[in-house]
């Protein structure tokens, strides 16, 4: 666990709350699936909360992120409202994308989230392009590109890292290494070393414990500041774990990973528990206070789900709206 990085306990508690919020969101989303109330499938972020929160708490609302198929965590961490998120997951009109995107395309441009992406690696260009725009316009925002370990197999990553490095773009590549690409251990499909792949393009690359939100936040805060000064790009590999299956329907998974491994991560490396224990040991919060935070957020998530369940679907005339934007 990293040293206390500032004396602002509010910031620690915010990170705690944000992680709990993601977990509560995912618990509800999973339940929606189990209750057959969710259209389609969705990919749970539970277990990886420290990654999104540690990084996004280092960003301002003007900074941008691009997200993945496993995108709820990034969306919450970047400031989204649970109600609008649940509405989107259920295809309702009040969803962030008016129900047109769903879980795999949830975007919240008001908070700088350029969107989840159902093409693995599909947003690497978008993130790098956002950083190019910032540089060209003299804007000071930084863009973080989230993607999984499996996505490092997409050639696009190397193309855009090359350009980001050549042009010193303010982009941070955040590789969420949860060890698996769908139903395959990534070790089996990735040769060499991921950090070396970034370094080969002259990009400074770091590895960090993806369950330690404070360590992540400290590193991210530093790199974001340096990227703003034109010292980017950077690459971070975050070692983490997804608690659920690849998606909510992936129930029997012993053929690709053991129950023991799952239990070990949940018991010994849970990011919420790790930060909670530290908050208590540092006397920033008591167990009871943390319990209240968790309960409040769980209740909030519950209310948000209920709201979304009752919210209305888009009108059928929306089906061919937004194919093209009207140009004035």
């Amino acid at each position, binding site marked *: 666990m990293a040293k206390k990085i500032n004396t602002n306990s509010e910031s620690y508690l915010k990170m705690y709350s944000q992680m709990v919020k993601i977990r509560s969101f995912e618990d509800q989303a999973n339940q929606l699936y189990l209750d057959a109330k969710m259209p389609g499938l969705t990919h749970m972020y539970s277990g990886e909360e420290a990654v999104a929160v540690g990084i996004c708490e280092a960003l301002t609302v003007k900074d941008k992120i691009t997200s993945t198929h496993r995108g709820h965590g990034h969306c919450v961490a970047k400031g989204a409202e649970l109600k609008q998120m649940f509405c989107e997951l259920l295809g309702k009109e009040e969803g962030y994308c008016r129900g047109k995107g769903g879980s*795999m395309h949830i975007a919240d441009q008001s908070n700088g989230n350029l969107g989840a992406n159902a093409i693995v690696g599909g947003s690497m260009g978008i993130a790098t392009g956002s950083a190019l725009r910032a540089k060209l316009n003299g804007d000071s925002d930084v863009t973080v590109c989230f993607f999984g370990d499996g996505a490092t*197999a997409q*050639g696009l990553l190397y193309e855009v890292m090359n350009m980001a490095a050549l042009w010193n773009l303010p982009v941070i590549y955040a590789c969420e290494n949860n060890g698996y690409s769908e139903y395959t251990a990534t070790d089996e499909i990735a040769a060499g070393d991921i950090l070396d792949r970034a370094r080969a393009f002259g990009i400074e690359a770091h590895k960090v414990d993806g369950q330690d939100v404070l360590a992540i936040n400290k590193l991210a805060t530093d790199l974001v500041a340096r990227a703003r000064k034109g010292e980017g790009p950077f690459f971070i590999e975050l070692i983490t774990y997804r608690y659920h299956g690849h998606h909510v329907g992936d129930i029997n998974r012993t053929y690709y990973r053991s129950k023991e491994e799952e239990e070990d991560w949940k018991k010994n490396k849970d990011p919420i528990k790790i930060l909670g224990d530290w908050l208590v040991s540092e006397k920033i919060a008591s167990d009871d206070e943390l319990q209240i935070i968790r309960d409040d957020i769980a209740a909030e998530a519950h209310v948000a789900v209920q709201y979304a369940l009752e919210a209305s679907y888009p009108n059928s005339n929306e089906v061919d709206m937004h194919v093209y934007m009207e140009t004035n």
Partner: protein
Amino acid sequence: MRSITLSQAVNEAIAEEMRLDSSVFLIGEDVAEAGTPFKITTGLVEEFGTERVIDTPISEPGFMGLAVGAAMTGSRPIVDIMFGDFLFLIMDQLCNQAAKAHYMSGGKLNVPLVVRTNLGATRRSAAQHSQSLHALVSHIPGLKVAMPSSAYEAKGLLKTAIRDDNPVVIFEDKLMYQDKADVPEDEYLIPFGEAAVLQEGNQVTLIGTSSMRQVCEEAALILSDEKISVEIIDPRTLVPLDEKTILNSAKKTGRVIVVDEGHQNFGVTAEIASRISEKAFYYLDAPVIRMGAMDVPVPFSPVLEDLTVPTAEKVASNARKIVAGELVHEL
């Protein structure tokens, strides 16, 4: 006859061809132990081993490229592209390389490979996992394109595809993987370029590809109650296209509706309709009606998504109109 699912039919086709020909192998993401997310290739790795059932990194352009090179030098790869939408990632290797190598080399190289992928919306998978992109590859000379409409066709066409000496793209309908159909135990092949006439009739021809064959069959049921005599045709392969069977039917009924799940604009319905309009012109009693998917990215919300795909009711209603001599479109 026994009845099996489309997914089992595909599995059998691959297994049978792999037993017959040691140069056939399967390559793609999670095709081995996981048996693909749709559980289609389950069991194959146990029988054929990881050398012939190859799990790849998430590198569609890369493993498609490998397949081209392996095919050029003597193998017969079956490439698994998990969702039809990911075809956009392999277009260069498929269309600039695989499709053209035989021609560019004056017939000296050839690329016998199969790209197995899928199509179909209404699975609540949104715009990047729901597309039906068969029109795109059908436009590229050098590729063959097959569109199985049931377990029976899935097996027979896939076996033919694997034996074909050219690159073939075969589109399975995701929503049909669990649908059963009668499939013979004995080996059979379905030749390319031969449409199936699924029902004979003389007032209107419904042409339905892949998923839309079922929609046409349902429409025919509705219409049979109204004593409208319907002929149903499934082209089975788009390239080569069985123009003769299609034109003969159009000449007989004089009225045709073409139904396809790809976007309508610049899509498959345009090709089939315009061939009929050009070559059966003097036999037509009504304009050929095109019914493709709406020209919108596939929306996630179920209430919207369901609006985008042709339905049996709409097909029946259009058929009713043209048989009655009414207009479908304002002129």
